[in-house]
């Protein structure tokens, strides 16, 4: 492949932070392209700083480059200054490894983690020199693919993306490679693009939207059905059974310039069964699959030695729930690597004193701030969302934090939740004030930051039927909090822009008709919408009006039990009746225990795939009451089935 580097190089001296366009990371591959190899370009549709650390893309990058019949390179959305330079000099989007033009790859595969990046996806496809609409692409154009959590409702991008992947990508990328390899070998004859897409629709976990007919009944969606008998009526997500078989990334990329999460990251488990009803990640990634503790230890030690990082994050949706987390953390901090003390971070702390104890152990030096996510201000509200943190748990956690030297505590909340009253909203301020009181016992300058986000209902959660709060209602609630906290200088309030919440809502549960709106906003220059300096609600509302679509209908309306949802032809492993029952339970303020250590609710995630939670400990972690509804202060034993595990692969 040709390199655009000679044309790109003079442009880089004219843009901010040019280091994000040069590659050269430690761990970057130098792939050799060839006719027998399927060339993947893995893209994150946001800046390099945000996209590079994405673990999903890094895992697939290694798996693909290990194959004889594939090569993978990476690309990120160029910032607006470089985009202007690229367009005015006719230089296309490029990979950061060999600076090959994006349009020369066989597949452009995007990670979709946030709705507000959708316009960036269109922009990247356009900068690659590829028609943005799937229907306009020919046999010589790359296939446009997407994976990641947002693909559980792919419909807004259905006219723009050729294929979506649902669920874990570790296995399916190889199956896609095989199909595309055969297509390449056959010479991509005229008209063959349709055939390869049809072939890809047979790969489990792959959804090819052009193979489906969408019918409407007035404004309502009536059905999404396959065009051909060989295309599956329902696309099921992919799930890898055992994380131990996938010790990736083996060579985490170490960037030359600063990025978010700039540290070693080791995924300790996938999936979560806490059952928080607002949390899409917890629902769609079930069941829980823990990595064996010894593999975690060896990935940490090898990773630190190779990268030179002095910090490692143990990542998952709730790392304090990892079996024997204390033991693992103690081993890591007591084993110097590269002659140096290592600091460990847990990006997702549970709200209880036990967790603070673990945090104290692992963060001996730096104690500036600690973050918890109680999510709602009253016990009633927390029962509705099934985040069963008692007030005592929070105060104990905060007491522990301030008594052990932390100076700031940050608390995350959602507002606009189902059944939320003003009392629930104001409960957020009350909790904040009480936490300051607790902190003052240890530190006269104790301060608490409350970060409040507007709730966006997500597909495949019990709240998928809920009509989200309007912009003005969310703003009113934020104002309530702001007024209530006006005199409390020790409680800082931060909030997410309710206008952005509305746009996220439109795309979160939108159908195919929303695609034209995304295209309009992109054509009007609306890129980097998750960056407040670029976001414009008016652009979205204008485009909605142009296409005769109502933001109200898409976001604020409660859906009924039997309404056809735009993702009903997709399967995240969760039974629809389980989700509906959970929605009813939420309205009845009924909490649900964590099924890792209690009987099965038959949500469908395990039974549907004949796999089970893989948990090393039959005992729930000591100290946490959240989720289980039990007093686990001494770690009560609850019977669970522990799967016999295959022998662990020898770490290479």
């Amino acid at each position, binding site marked *: 492949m040709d390199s655009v580097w*000679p*044309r790109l*190089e*003079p442009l*880089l*001296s004219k843009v901010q*932070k*040019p*280091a994000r*366009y*040069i*590659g*050269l990371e*430690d761990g970057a591959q130098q792939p050799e392209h060839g006719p027998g190899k399927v060339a993947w370009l893995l893209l994150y549709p946001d800046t390099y700083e945000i996209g590079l650390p994405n673990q999903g893309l890094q895992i697939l990058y290694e798996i693909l480059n290990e194959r004889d019949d594939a090569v993978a390179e990476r690309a990120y959305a160029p910032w607006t200054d470089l985009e202007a330079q690229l367009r005015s000099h006719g230089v296309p989007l490029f990979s950061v490894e060999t600076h090959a033009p994006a349009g020369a790859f066989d597949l452009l595969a995007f990670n979709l983690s946030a709705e507000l990046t959708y316009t960036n996806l269109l922009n990247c496809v356009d900068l690659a020199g590829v028609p943005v609409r799937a229907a306009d692409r020919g046999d010589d154009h790359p296939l446009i693919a997407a994976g990641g959590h947002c693909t559980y409702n792919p419909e807004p991008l259905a006219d723009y993306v050729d294929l979506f992947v649902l669920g874990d990508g570790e296995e399916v990328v190889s199956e896609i490679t095989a199909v595309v390899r055969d297509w390449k070998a056959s010479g991509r004859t005229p008209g063959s693009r349709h055939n390869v897409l049809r072939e890809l629709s047979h790969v489990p976990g792959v959804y090819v939207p052009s193979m489906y007919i969408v019918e409407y009944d007035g404004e309502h969606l009536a059905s999404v059905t396959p065009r051909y008998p060989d295309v599956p009526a329902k696309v099921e997500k992919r799930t890898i059974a055992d994380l131990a078989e996938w010790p990736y990334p083996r060579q985490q990329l*170490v960037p*030359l*310039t*600063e990025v978010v999460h700039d540290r070693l990251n080791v995924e300790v488990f996938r999936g979560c069964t806490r059952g928080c009803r607002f949390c899409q990640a917890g629902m769609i990634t079930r069941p829980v699959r823990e990595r064996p503790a010894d593999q975690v230890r060896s990935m940490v030690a090898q990773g630190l*030695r*190779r*990268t*030179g*990082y*002095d910090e490692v994050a143990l990542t998952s949706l709730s790392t304090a729930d990892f079996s024997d987390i204390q033991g693992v953390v103690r081993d890591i901090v007591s084993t110097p690597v*590269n*002659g*140096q003390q290592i600091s460990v971070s847990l990006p997702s702390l549970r709200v209880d004193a036990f967790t603070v104890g673990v945090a104290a152990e692992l963060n001996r*030096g*730096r*104690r500036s701030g600690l973050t918890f996510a109680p999510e709602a201000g009253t016990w009633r509200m927390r029962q509705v969302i099934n985040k069963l943190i008692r007030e005592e748990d929070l105060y104990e956690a905060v007491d522990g934090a301030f008594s052990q030297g932390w100076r700031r505590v940050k608390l995350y909340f959602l507002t606009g939740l189902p059944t939320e009253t003003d009392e629930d909203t104001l409960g957020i301020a009350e909790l904040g004030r009480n936490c300051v009181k607790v902190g003052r016992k240890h530190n006269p300058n104790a301060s608490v930051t409350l970060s409040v986000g507007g709730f966006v209902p997500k597909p495949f959660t019990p709240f998928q039927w809920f009509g989200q709060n309007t912009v003005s209602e969310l703003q009113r609630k934020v104002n309530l909090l702001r007024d209530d906290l006006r005199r409390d200088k020790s409680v800082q309030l931060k909030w997410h822009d309710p206008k952005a919440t509305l746009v996220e809502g439109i795309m979160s549960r939108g159908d195919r008709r929303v695609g034209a709106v995304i295209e309009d906003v992109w054509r009007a220059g609306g890129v980097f919408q998750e960056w407040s300096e670029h976001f414009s609600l008016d652009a979205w509302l204008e485009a909605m009006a142009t296409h005769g679509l109502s933001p109200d209908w898409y976001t604020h309306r409660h859906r009924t039990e039997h309404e056809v949802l735009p993702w009903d032809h997709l399967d995240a492993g969760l039974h629809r009746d389980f989700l509906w029952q959970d929605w009813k339970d939420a309205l009845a303020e009924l909490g649900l225990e964590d099924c890792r250590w209690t009987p099965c609710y038959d949500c469908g995630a395990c039974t549907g795939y004949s796999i089970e939670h893989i948990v090393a400990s039959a005992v729930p972690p000591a100290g946490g009451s959240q989720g289980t509804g039990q007093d686990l202060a001494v770690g009560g034993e609850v019977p669970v089935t522990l799967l016999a595990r295959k022998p662990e692969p020898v770490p290479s």
Partner: protein
Amino acid sequence: MRIRFRFTKLGKVRFTSHRDIARIWERSLRRAELPLAQTEGFSPRPKVHFGLALSTGHESLGEYIDVDLREPEAESIDVAALPALLTPLLPIGVDVEAAEVIDRKEPSLQQAVTACTWQIEVPGIEPGALVADVARMLAAPTLEITRERKGQATVDDIRPAIRSVEVVGPTPADRFESGSVLFAELATQPRGLRPAELLIALVPPRQEGRVRRLEQWIELDGARREPLPAATRATPADRLVS
């Protein structure tokens, strides 16, 4: 024990910032498992001292970093072997070319270095025309330019900071736009003169193309030397444009 390293910054890696290079060095020193001396306090950091900042986008044949090591562990280190140990741990384009133990009492690089030699490409002008422009500039008794200092525009006479400027030929054929190459020796104290600032003193003002720092100079009692001579490089032939 304090060790001074001399290294290059060539090719794509020149688009990293001074701060990026500092972080890259810290990680590489840890990977080399050197007994790094650490700062005290809540967030201990290795004690490393960088010289004059190099602008993002500029190349260099002579960058320096001073690293403090713990004693007595450091005494067993083979200092001469360090360049070969560290270069593979650093990005392509960053080659460690020399390492030497220096006296802790030596003034810091920022204080000691008083001038730098630069190779500056000037696109859009032929060497013959540039020779005339340069001669006219150097003949002026004062050269006032407006530049920013701490957010304020100030007018400075930069003539005293210009030690020498010499046009050496045309730019290489593969450049996006053809032009001329000049060598310039510019003072770094009391206030450093940047290559771009030199070019705006030309009439008409010019913009810099590719820029490469060739040498940094410490001047003492009328003699000048580099902070650390390169063991393997920096012969005049290597200074040629590439």
